[in-house]
Structures are given as C-alpha cells and as structure tokens.
C-alpha cells in the first residue's frame, strides 16, 4: 500500500509541474493524437464500406447466379431457368405465388457531384416483388415507377452522390430519356447506390430479350438454402450457384476492405513508431529537466521503483490524452462522411459513409497505450538509475 501511495504522490508531483514542460509534452500528445486520428480515419473507410455492403444482405434471402459468375454483373439466366428457380422447394410462398424477384443489372455513366466526371452507376431492372425480397426498402419521396414506362426511382445515397437525380428531373442514357419519379430508402445499404426501373423496360432498352442476371428468393428459413441448392444441382436444365444474400455481399466487399486494411495497418504501425520517437524525446527531456528533483526524492528515501513507475505513468497519461483527442477528432470530422468508389466485382459505384466505430476507437487507444508505455519505459529506467550524489551536486 505504501508503495502505491508513494507512486501516486510522485506522479501527482510530476503532473503538477507539467505546465513547465508544456511544449515537449504537447509534442508527445499531438504525435499520438495524429496516429489515432489517421488510424481511425483510414480504417473507418473499410468499416463503412463493409457495413454498407453487409447490411444489404439477409440470411432469409438467397441469390441465384449462373455458376462461375462472380457478381450479378457477369451472371445471366434465361426465363426458363428463372421459372425453375421460382418453383423449387425451399422458396417461401405467399398463397400460391413464390416470393421471388428476377432482376437485371447494368451500368450507366452518370457524373459524380464531387468530381463532375463519369462514374459507373448501377442500374437495376426490378419487378414490384423487389420490395418483398428486401427488408427495409421503402419509397421516401415521390412514387414508385409505373410498369412499362421509362421511369426510374433512385436510391437516396445515389441521389446525394451523383448529378441530376432529383425527383421530377429527366436523365438521358444514350437515346433514351428517363424520368426520375421517386427516391427510396434502404437503411444506407448498397441498394441505395442504385437506380431502379421496370425490368421489362430495361430488357427492351438493353436488348436483353427475356433474360435476367439474378434471381432473389425469400427462403422459408435460412436452412432452406441447402434444400434449394441441392434441388437445383440435380436439375440438368440449369447450372447455377445459390448463396444467401449476406454471404454474397460479404464476398463482394472482401476485396476492397482487404485492400484498405493491407494499406491501413502498416501505415498506422509506421506512424506509431514515429510517434514513439516523439514520446521518447519528450520523456527524456522531462527526466533531464527534473534531474535534481528526482535525486532529491531519492535522497528523501523514495525508491527507484517509485521513480520508474511514476515516470511511466506520466507518459502513459500523456499518450492516452493524445489518443482521446485523436479519436474524438476522427469521430467528429470523419464519422458519416459520404464517399463513393468503384467496387471491383460489380464494376460499379458503391456509395458509403465513413464509420468511426467503437472498436476502432478502442484499437486506437490501445495503440496509444503501447506508445505511452514503451515511450516512457526507457526514460523511466534512466530516471530510476540516476546516480543520486552526482545529480544533487549539480545544484
């Protein structure tokens, strides 16, 4: 107990004369803050992107693609195949009608607001049942498109990100003019990056005849996925792959999130090493400034352990303050910040928000803690080993 009281007393002493060493302590704090800020900001891109992709997927919905296709964009299914899927076991029915949505997925060039350059925006042909196989998608402004007309509804994220998608405006793709009649809300998921129209109209405009690219089906239960896949595997008329929607979107997100992490983690480690040098510098100067004070304490009977731990406590505290500042700053500046990027597998834009999540902040603070402890240890060792007599003589 006495040892702890001693350590606390000496730490308190250190902290009280911190203002005299303001400049060098501030440098250590800012260094750690920068690490946590950059770490949280960069990794929050991966988090936000992943969240947008994965929140679109449900385990109760299966997506059927041609075997070998890596995304809806490069899949293709005939009308006959669509009918086989819709009549397969495991598909939930509303009365006699299976709950399915056969869709077409193409890409159109629309300008991004931020750069005013063309971007590949996903353009999906759907039936009214698209709303039945997706949870939480609802019209937020205007109305649903009318079948057979060149009308589109746009996701809220797409509307914010791209030029000319306000409700009641018209937009031209090639020779065809389309009217935006409404916008829809999909809880910020990837669907919100898309433009939707009547599938029959889109099939006509893109000369796709009676074909589809994906079929989404509502499953009776997540376990029905296996039943559906097994049935379709045995059918010689069809060669498809069935996944639940969550796995599908997680797969679509994998490449980009992995890329951000592969870049983000080494970047943070390097920055942390840089901040460590800053922290060491500041603690060495703190120890050297307090040389006489430390020697006096030792002469009064405080042990070397007390000096060691109190010095480390000071640096850890400084680093934690830096970490908190960096984390709060990252949250205030970046959380919710909207961007869009080209996602490889679907070769189209995904609009997402940076997500500075709790676990990122905790990881950031852990990094700060490590910097503080390591950055304090070596200077603390020097303080503890200070030859008392020599240091006092400098008086």
């Amino acid at each position, binding site marked *: 107990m006495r040892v702890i009281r001693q350590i606390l007393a000496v730490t308190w002493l250190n902290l009280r004369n911190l203002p005299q060493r303001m*400049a*060098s302590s*501030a*440098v250590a704090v*800012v*260094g750690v803050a*920068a690490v946590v*800020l*950059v770490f949280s*900001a*960069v990794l929050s891109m991966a988090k936000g992107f992943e969240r947008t992709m994965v929140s679109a997927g449900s385990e109760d919905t299966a997506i059927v693609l*041609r*075997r*070998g*296709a*890596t995304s809806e*964009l*490069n899949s*293709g299914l005939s009308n006959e195949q669509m009918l086989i899927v819709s009549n397969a076991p495991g598909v939930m029915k509303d009365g006699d009608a299976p709950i399915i949505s056969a869709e077409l997925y*193409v*890409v*159109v*060039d629309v300008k*991004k607001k*931020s*750069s005013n*350059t*063309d*971007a*590949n925006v996903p353009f999906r042909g759907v039936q009214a049942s698209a709303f039945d196989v997706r949870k939480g998608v609802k019209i937020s402004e205007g109305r649903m498109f009318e079948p057979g007309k060149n009308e589109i509804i746009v996701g809220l994220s797409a509307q914010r990100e791209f030029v000319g998608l306000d409700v009641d405006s018209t937009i031209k*793709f*090639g*020779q065809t003019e389309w009217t935006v009649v409404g916008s829809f809300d999909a809880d910020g998921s990837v669907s919100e990056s898309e433009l939707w129209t009547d599938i029959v109209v889109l099939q006509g405009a*893109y*000369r796709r005849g009676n074909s589809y690219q994906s079929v989404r089906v509502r499953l009776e239960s997540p376990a029905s996925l296996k039943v559906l896949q097994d049935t379709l595997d045995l059918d010689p008329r069809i*060669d498809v792959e069935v996944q639940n929607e969550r796995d599908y979107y997680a797969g679509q997100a994998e490449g980009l999130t992995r890329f951000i992490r592969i*870049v983000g983690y080494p*970047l943070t480690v*390097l*920055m942390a*090493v*840089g*901040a460590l*040098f*800053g922290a*060491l*510098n*500041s603690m*060495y*100067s703190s120890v050297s400034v307090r040389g006489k004070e430390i020697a006096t304490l030792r002469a009064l009977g405080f042990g070397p352990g007390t000096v060691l731990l109190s010095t480390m406590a000071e640096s850890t505290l400084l680093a934690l303050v830096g970490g908190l500042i960096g984390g709060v700053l990252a949250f205030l500046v970046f959380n919710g910040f909207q*961007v*869009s*990027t*080209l996602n490889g597998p679907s*070769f189209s*834009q995904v609009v997402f928000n940076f997500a500075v999540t709790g676990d990122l902040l905790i990881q950031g603070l852990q990094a700060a803690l490590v910097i503080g402890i390591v950055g304090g240890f070596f200077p603390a060792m020097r303080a503890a080993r200070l030859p008392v007599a020599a240091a006092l003589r400098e008086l």
Partner: protein
Amino acid sequence: MKYFYLVWKNAWRKKIRTTLTILSVFIAFLLFSLLSAINYAFTGGVDLADAERLVVIEKISLINPLPISYMDRIAAIEGVQEVMHLSWFGGYYQEPRNQFPQFPTDPYPYFAMYPELDIPAEQLEAWSKNRTGAVVGKDLADQYGWKLGDRLPIIATIWTKADGSTNWEFDIEGIFSTSDPRGSTAYMLFRYDYFDEARAFGQGTVGWYTLRVRNGADPIQVAKAIDLQFANSAAETKTSTEAAFAQSFTKQFGNIALIVTLVLGAVFFTLLLVSGNTMSQSVRERIPELAVLKTLGFTDRSVLGIVLSESMLITFIGGALGLGIGWLIIKGLASQLAAFLPGFYLPASALITGVVLMIIAGVLAGIFPAAKAMRLSIVDALSRA
C-alpha cells in the same frame, strides 16, 4: 560552410534527442514516399498515355459492347492511322483470388499500337499462328512462374463456351515486357478469333477500340468525327484521348490524392512540432554559448545561419534516409505487388516534392529559435548564465 564543424558539434550535443528527432523525420519521409507510390499507382496511368491514341467506348457505359463491324468504319475515318480492339474477359487462374486482366485481341495490331511493349518477333509470330495461343506479361509470368509452352487454364466468370464449359485453355506462346518502370505488364492477351468463335453469346462484338491518329491530324477532331459517324445508331460511341480516359477511370475510385494529402498533412504537422521543439530546446540550453559567440564577433546573421543550418541538417539527414529507404522498399515491392497494385512506383516528381518538403520543414522548424538566437542581447544572455 566554414561553420559546418560547429553546426555538426552543436547538433550532437544531446545525442539521444538528435537521434530521436532524426528518426521522426525519417519515418515522416518514409511515409511520404510510400504514400506517393500508392497514389501514383492509382493516378499514374495518365502519365503513360500517348497523346496520339484515342479510346472509343460505348456511350452509355464502358461495359456495353460495340459491334466488330465498327473496326473498318473507324479505320476509314480521315486522320485515323491504325485501329485495334480489346474486350474484357474477366477470368481467373485456378481460384477466384488469382484475378488479373485478360483481353482477347488481334496479335499484330495490338503490339503495333503499343510500341512501348517489347516482345520477341518469333514469339509474336508463333502466337499469330496458334489460335489457342496467348501471350502473358512478364510481371504475371514471374508471379506465377509460367514459361513458354506452358498450358494455361483460365476459368471464365462471364464468357461460358458454346459447350457450356467455363474452362478455357491457352498455350503460352510469348512473354512481353516493358522497359518503363512505371508500366505494369500483369495481364494476358489471347486471340479474338478463337474467343469469338468459342463463346456462347455476344458474337460479333468487342469491348472497345483503341486507335492512333495520323501524324499531324487533330485528335479532338478525329474523336468528334468518330462519334458523329455512329450518332443515332443502336450503339453510340464516346471517343476520348487515352489520357482523358485514364483520368476519368481513375476518378471513379474516388479522391485518392486527397486522402493521401490529408494523411501526410497530419504526419508533417506532427513532424514540425517534433523538430521545432527540439530546436527551441537546443537554443534555450545554449543561450550563454550563443552570447559568447556573439561576444567573439559572430554577426547576428551568422548566429541565425548556424541555428538554421542545424535544423536543416537534422531534417536533411532524416529526410534523405526516409526517401532513400522508401525508394528501395518501393523498388523491392513493386514486382511482388504487380498484380495487386500495378504501377506502384516512386516518380521523380515525388522525389523533388520530398526535397522541397525537407527544405520547408527545416526552415519552419528552425526559423523561430534561430530568430530568437539572432536577437539575443549579449549582456542579458551572459548575465543569465
């Protein structure tokens, strides 16, 4: 220069502090070079573009095909010297994570269009004689250990064959390379005639055309003439210079340059505080010494110069180490990253920016302590000692 010994000695009076400061500067410049190379991988394609090459894509989207019949019609347009076509195959080798671009095209026109690529003449000839032949870039061949004569199976994600299979097999007839360190060759080419005959759907279409304008012809006029030719047809075109095409494609990824700049901004702000603090501490401790120097007849300006030089010295040692080691790491990683991040390269412009940043950081960190040292009054300073 004559004070170099003095500056050097001053810099090392507190070895730990100077070493740690140099290391901080080193890390900052190492980050600078690595981030510049990442940024270049995303935006550098524009540098490789040839001003006389145009790219013709479908107007609504790059993913929509164009008829192969456009080939002759484009070739006939005034100012077009030669034209060739490419398509996107989108397959992978063995497992989906081994993805790299594959393009069906025609052998001779392709290499005529890209004189910056080197391929032995006999390999090009062998490819032109083998319908199922393919040529692979050196970066790709190195990564997977492929050699001439290997049988190369590629799994299609889009193009099933007419027999329903997704398994395409090719013979490696050639390996092409480029002497330009900025260019990546992590892709493969195979024969369009074989592709078009074997695929299940999409016959008679290509992905896009690339053409070279005749010497002296105005690329912008040629581009307009092409788009006018196909206006109001079922497949309208959008023709742009290779540079504009590369730039607009780059922009699709988002503002990578801005992200890099923000990160570096945070890094350099911290760095300035670290080295600025070191310099001001160092000057504070040395006030009596500086006063002695002045008493000995050193002018105010030499004292300013001495302190500023010390700050520059620290920044330059750390900065040069950071840029140098960064350059080595980038050179070493470039070939391993070729498929993952093609064009990972440190351009000369980034090295120049790096040196400019060193000068700015050195001056900013040193200027206030140096000015303080310059203004020092001898009497006050000596009496404080």
